[in-house]
């Protein structure tokens, strides 16, 4: 792993106030990266900002079209450019989970808005900055947080699984297209983690069987700073 690359590496993380996103904010700040994180609720953003004052907290909802450019402007205002974007914010769709036949269309739309359209829009809004990073030889990277539910058809995970499957495939196609620009787009399955999102989906899960988000964050951080 290259210590050089971590120094001054400019990283934006969505969904940065809980679960994997929060673990990534902590891990990357502690490794010396310049970090901006985005989350919907100001209280959460302020809480994490107090914990890691070096990180720039931004209030915004990636599922809302009108929030995307204000988020991008604030990310670039905080970091002065961008090398890594982690699209981590996720929506389960209906909570508690229900079969597709009982899933309201609005719940499916919400899952798609957060897990697919939001990452697409934010990546596009920041693509010029990522391409500038590539021209500077900084090997920019977009990490889209996926799930094994993107591949395996788990009953009751329809809205989430379908949206993550779409994100996974979007990542693969985009990666092909952007290779010539020097921008990598990865879809990563961090595994079943002990996070608030997992607790919502599987309230009775044995937490001792779940991966710590800190471990997943270290794995992703290793990848990001390679």
């Amino acid at each position, binding site marked *: 792993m290259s210590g050089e690359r971590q120094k001054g590496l400019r990283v934006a993380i969505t969904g940065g106030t809980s679960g994997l996103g929060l673990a990534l904010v902590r891990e990357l700040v502690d490794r010396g990266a310049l970090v901006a994180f985005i989350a919907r609720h100001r209280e959460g953003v302020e809480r994490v900002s107090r914990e890691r004052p070096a990180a*720039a*907290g*931004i*209030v915004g909802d990636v599922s809302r079209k009108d929030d995307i*450019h*204000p*988020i*991008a*402007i*604030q990310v*670039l*205002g*905080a*970091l*002065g*450019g961008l090398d890594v974007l982690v699209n981590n914010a996720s929506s389960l769709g209906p909570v508690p989970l229900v079969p597709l036949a009982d899933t309201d269309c609005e719940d499916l739309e919400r899952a798609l808005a957060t897990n697919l359209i939001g990452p697409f829009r934010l990546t596009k*809004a920041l*693509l*010029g*900055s990522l*391409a*500038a990073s590539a*021209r*500077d*030889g900084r090997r920019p990277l977009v990490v889209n947080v996926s799930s094994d539910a993107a591949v395996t058809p788990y009953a009751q995970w329809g809205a989430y699984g379908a949206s993550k499957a779409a994100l996974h495939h979007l990542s693969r196609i985009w990666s092909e*297209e952007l290779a*010539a*620009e020097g921008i990598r787009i990865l879809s990563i399955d961090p595994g079943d983690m002990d996070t608030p999102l997992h607790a919502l989906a599987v309230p009775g899960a044995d937490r001792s069987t779940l991966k710590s988000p800190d471990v997943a964050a270290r794995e992703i951080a290793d990848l990001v700073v390679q």
Partner: protein
Amino acid sequence: MIPAGTATPRPRDARLLVIDERGAMTHLARADFQMLVREGDIVVANDAATLPASLAGVHMRTGSSVEVRLAGRDSLLPRDATRFTAVVFGAGDFRTPTEHRPHPPRMHPGDELRLGPLRAIVVAVLAHPRLIEVRFENPVAAIWEGLARHGRPIQYAYVPEPLAIWDTWTRIAGLPVAFEAPSAGFMLDWTVISALRARGAAFATLTHAAGISSTGDAELDRLLPLDEPYDIPASTAALIEASRDRGGRVIAVGTTVVRALEHAARADGTVRPGAGTATERIGPRTRLRCVDAVVSGTHEPGTSHYDLLRAFQDDEVLRRMEREADAHGYRTHEFGDSVWLAHSRSSALIRVLMIRGRGCEGRRTPSRRLLDRSDGASANAGRP
């Protein structure tokens, strides 16, 4: 010319009026722009994203409604986003043509402006009563949030619908430092950029804080363009040098790129990388050192943008360009059609001869390039 009154940054039917070195004119679909670019050339664009630089608010001493249009700053550094040069308008918004806008109250140093969540202090009144320097009192992160959330893109009355911020961002938009869209860049998309590379040309960017184009006040307009900070990446400077060494042309997408490159140009036409502030006005007496051709929107005589074009071709050619664009119904302003204007005294041909003289030919043989140059008015227009 007809104003383009629809906020379509990439209209499929956009056109490109091509004026070659000799002043000969042809018409192209703008989508075919890359056909003008040859192996060894370099296309340089401004990758500044557009700030929502129009801030509505209140002048606290008088209680008057004002619109503050941010128009300049000293550097591109995000942490320096506290002090701006700004133009103040009275009550109302873009729907009223700028020249009919009511005057703002007289500004005095120390006056407070409340602009949504932002609080600004008038630091100084500059060379015109409506041109001021302001300092935001909020922490820097809150300034960026306030601009992002409360600001709106600067807009003019010929586009009746309110612009969304994404209407003003080019495909390559990066750091949000432009006060108005670097609109020549609307012609670029990732497909075009890929096509440029496939033709053996290089693509590079610089970042230039494009200022405002018009204030509605002739005296104030004469002060434009204000000083504009820019940054030229080392990779861009190196690619320009490599292209020139091969006899390739430097093609600037937009007047801001010309302004930055010529400000940073050394006598030999290479450019100094890094941060700078473009201070000169480029006009008929400017000797261009770096740029061989500019792609730009159409501009009206008398504006600073038009003056810049006079460095490329003499007034007779530009008058013919105006007539040609008028006769063919070209649309003007930032969402309109475009012109490709080659420099009549471009040194690209001389560079090719010098390269041949040195015997260090590029990948492409000079004789072939000279053939391209010598086959008359169509040399620049549409050779695939």
